[in-house]
Every structure is written in structure tokens, then in C-alpha cells.
């Protein structure tokens, strides 16, 4: 988790603060729709590829309507790929049963399920990232709390997010100073590491203490108050019901298969 990661996080934060039609949709509606999307994508049989393709419409539509630059999201998806790749990569070598054929070339079940896993990976990861990029952490946490997530947890999420940057700054300052003092050597020795992280912990705790004092001075009594909850508007309902209808249709009928007709029939 290098320093670029933090720049990326703050970039996501800036994206979340934009003002586009997608950003205006209620956070609860977007969360529920995205969860439904992921569940339906994952409920397909393991050899399914073509029926998954219409689902790309959801993240791509949000990406464009939310004016999110696709490049930064793609980089994140690539960085996250290894786990799914490492586990899915075994399928082609373990499952040799031919399940379909394109022309004269037969395709083994393993390759098909591998492609299916990677497609699902792309879909689910991009949906989750797009959700945050076009909602922002504050709206998301407020939405989560109103959906019944325990208040302590919603507050914890917000606090964590708020202090990420501050503590990370503290950490990178310490690293920079230690780099200046240890000319030429690239790695920390264990003893140095232990006291460095220990000090970071002490500083973080001291900061938590100061924050607590400041909160007390402003009348904090252990409760987080949110002002009037806003009701769902008609555009929220349109978003929710429209996408749900599309997902259910795409789950029930193979929309891509209908479009391309007999060509993809073998692969589905």
C-alpha cells in the first residue's frame, strides 16, 4: 500500500463529491441495486459467459452518466485481479471435458469456467468501485445507517475514513524522516521497524484522545445525529425499478444470445 494508493483514494473521494444525475440518486437505492446486481451475476451457472455480457451495461452506464474517468477504475481492477486469477487459472488444467465448440475447435469446460470467472470478476469489482465513485463515502455511510446497519458501525466507518489520510500523513512523514537518517539503505531493520510502528501507534492514540476532547467540548454525548432523513424521490424509484427489471430480464433470458442468434448458441 504505497503512497499512490492514498492519492487514488483521495481521487475516489473527489469523484464521489461530483454532482451528476447518478450522484443525485439516493445512496440506499444505489447500494441495493448494486447488491442485487452482484447477487444475480453470481447466481449464473459456472459455464455461463454470453448471458453475463448484458450486465456490463450497468457499470458502464453509471461510469458515463457519473462522469467517472474509466482509466483510474481499470487500474484498480487490474491491481485486484491476482486472487481471482490465481484460483480460476486452475480450472482449464483440471476440467478437460469438451462442452462446446466454435467451428472445429472444441472448448473444454475448464476454459469456459475460467472465462466466466474472469467476466464475473470484472463485473462485480467494477460495480462496487463505481458505486463508491458515484456516491462518496459520506452519503454511503448515511445511507447504510438508514438501511439498518448498526449505528456504531456506520460511525466507525466514517471515523476510519476521516482519519485514514491524517494517520497516513503521519506515517509517511515518519518514513521520510527515517529515510533521511539512513542514507543508502532501502529497508528497515526489524528493531527500527518495531519502534517506528510503536511510535506511530502512540501518536495515533494521542490524536484519538485530542479528537475526543474536542468532541466533548462540542457537546458529544455518544450519539451521532443525522438531520431530517430525505424521502425517496420518483427518480430514485425509476432507477431502482428500471435496473431491477433489466437485471431480472437479463437473468431470465439470454439477451446476448437473442441478439447474436445462432452464433453464440454453442457457448451459452
Amino acid at each position, binding site marked *: 500500500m504505497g503512497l499512490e494508493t492514498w*492519492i487514488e483514494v483521495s481521487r475516489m473521494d473527489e469523484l464521489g463529491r461530483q454532482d451528476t444525475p447518478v450522484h443525485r440518486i439516493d445512496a440506499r437505492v444505489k447500494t441495493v441495486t448494486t447488491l442485487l446486481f452482484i447477487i444475480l451475476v453470481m447466481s449464473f451457472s459456472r459455464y455461463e459467459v454470453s448471458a453475463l455480457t448484458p450486465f456490463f451495461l450497468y457499470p458502464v452506464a453509471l461510469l458515463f452518466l457519473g462522469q467517472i474517468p474509466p482509466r483510474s477504475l481499470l487500474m*484498480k481492477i487490474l*491491481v*485486484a485481479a491476482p486472487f481471482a486469477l490465481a484460483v480460476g487459472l486452475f480450472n482449464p488444467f483440471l476440467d478437460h471435458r469438451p462442452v462446446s465448440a466454435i467451428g472445429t475447435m472444441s472448448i473444454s469446460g475448464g476454459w469456459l469456467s475460467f472465462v466466466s470467472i474472469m467476466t464475473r470478476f470484472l463485473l462485480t469489482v467494477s460495480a462496487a468501485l463505481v458505486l463508491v465513485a458515484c456516491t462518496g463515502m459520506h452519503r454511503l455511510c448515511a445511507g447504510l445507517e438508514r438501511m439498518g446497519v448498526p449505528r456504531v458501525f456506520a460511525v466507525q466507518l466514517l471515523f476510519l475514513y476521516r482519519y*485514514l489520510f491524517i*494517520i497516513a500523513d503521519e506515517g509517511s512523514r*515518519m518514513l521520510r524522516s527515517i529515510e533521511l537518517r539512513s542514507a543508502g539503505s532501502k529497508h528497515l531493520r526489524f528493531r527500527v521497524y518495531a519502534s517506528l510502528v510503536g511510535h506511530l501507534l502512540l501518536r495515533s492514540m494521542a490524536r*484519538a484522545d485530542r479528537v475526543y476532547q474536542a468532541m466533548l467540548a*462540542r457537546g458529544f454525548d455518544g450519539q451521532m445525529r443525522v438531520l431530517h432523513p430525505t424521502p425517496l424521490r420518483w427518480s430514485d424509484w425509476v432507477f431502482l425499478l428500471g435496473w431491477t427489471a433489466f437485471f431480472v430480464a437479463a437473468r431470465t433470458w439470454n439477451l446476448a444470445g437473442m441478439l447474436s442468434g445462432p452464433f453464440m448458441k454453442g457457448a451459452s
Partner: protein
Amino acid sequence: MHMADALISPAVGGTMWAISGGIMAYCARRVKESLKDNLVPLMGVLGAFIFTAQMINFSIPGTGSSGHLGGGLILAVLLGPHAAFLVIASVLTVQAFFFADGGLLALGCNIFNLGFYPAFIAYPFLYRVIAQDRYVSARAIFAAMAAAVAGLQLGAFSVVLETKASGLSDLPFGTFVLLMQPIHLAIGLVEGLTTAVVVSFVARARPEVMPTASSLAGMPVNARPVLLGLLMATVFAGGILSWFASTHPDGLEWSIAKVTGKEEVAGRESGCASAHRRCRKQQPSCLITISKRQQKPLPARSHPMKQTIPRRGRRGMPAHRFRDLRVASSHWLW
């Protein structure tokens, strides 16, 4: 050890969501009941600390690799199991949202694998029993190592069970276990050692911040919820295993034949192991990263962003922005 959405079936993901959600609700109630409202900022800041500590690496002599602090155990030691579980859950949620590390459907699995075992199994039954609230001793180092290894082994085994139950991966059970467990043994030893030295450093430098035996006495290790959780996990695991066994009548023989009979599998094992290690090592050595970053000024990267996202003034704010403002205004406490 973060599981991705792409390998989880909705049934497994949903079940683990329900289990983790239940534990979270229970923990939230316990934290609320503890009436220590200074716990609120402490939890948030320690979550941020875990993130930051993971970007500081030390070199492991002789191996060329580097290690860093894990999360679960040190949080359990500093905050007690209930608050620690919530902090781990929040860290994993932020990782899922911002780093695509794990996913939304897999979040329940990840919270359970990385939060439940260290906080509710390894910490109360191994760390506290062995270390006996003495943070600066050889016992404490041994306790932390035992607890971290046990927590990670259980977690890694859960990853295997959950992946198998989802049925999207063809990886035989035995091979998968043989891949996961040894890797996480090494990771567990490093996590235990780092946890022990950081805790002993803090206990020596500022003993008053460590939870003392008397303050922990008010937070008794209640065995009932733990046993209940274990029971639920056992029933769950039993259920999916029997389902798995019924759909693959010769499942065990089949996987054993795959594991032992095929040279191919054994040959590829190292490939996947190294891929997994590479995936662990994605955090680059920070010293290098930062020094390079210093030479390349940041604004160059942030410029295009500023062009795409114009900052808006307060004046002329459209009406729909007001409700965001209302949400934002509730955060004035910070």
C-alpha cells in the same frame, strides 16, 4: 486472504453475510453497553493506524522479502474483542470499496475469516491464556505468535471451505488446503512477531494506555456467544459439505486422485504459490516509492482531475444539493 466476489456463490455469500452481520450487531450492542464513549474516536483512529502500518514494511533478513503488521490480533489486544471485530469489519469494508480488495458479496466471508477468528478465538483462548496480561515478556511473544498463527490458519481454512462450497473453482480441496495453509503459516509467524514487539514497545513506553487486567476484568470473556458462533459455523460447514458430498458422490476420491495422480497439479502449485505471494507483496517497498514520488511532483497527476471535476462554489447551488448539505452538516462534530 481477501476473497473476491467472482468466486463466491450467492448462497455462501449470503450465509456469511448473515453470520457476520449477526456478530456485528452483537458487537455493536456490547460496545454501546460498555459506555466508554472515548472508544468511538479510538476505534476510528486505530482502524486508520492499521491501514498506515500496513504500508510500512521491514525486511526479513536472508529472504529478500518484507513483512508488515497484520490487523486482527493487535486490535483485539488494544481494544478487546468486540470493538476489534467492528474495526476489522470497517477496515475490510473500506478495502472492498476503495481498493477492490475483496468485494461486496464476499464481504461477509472476509469479515468472518479475518475478524471472527483473531478476535473471538485466537485472542481470548490463546493470547490471553498464554500471555496472562503481561505484555513485555517472552511469554507475550510466544502468545502472539501462537494466536496469530492459529487465527490465520483457521481463516485460511475457511477461505478454502467457502470457495469449495461456492463450486466455481475446480481446484481440488486437498491441493487448495496444501496451498493456503503453509503460506499463511509464514504470514502468521510474521504477524505474531510484529504484534508482539509493537505491543511490548507501547507497554514499555506508555504502560497506562494498555488495557490492564482490572479493566479487562469488566470485559469478561463470555464463552457462550463464541460457542454459539462456532456451533453456527459447524452447522453451516456441515451443511455445505454434505451438500457438496451429495452432488459429488465420489468427491473425496476424485480430489485425492487429482492431487496424487497428476504431476501437472504438483508442478503448477509453485506457480500459484508465487502468484499468491506476489499478490501479497503488492504493497511495494515504501521507501523507494516515496523517494520516487518526491522527485515527481504530485500536481502533475492531480491536474487533469481538477479539470474534469470543477469545484463548485456555494452560490448557485442547485436545490438537490441541499440534502447532501444536510447530511454533511450533521458531521460538524468532527
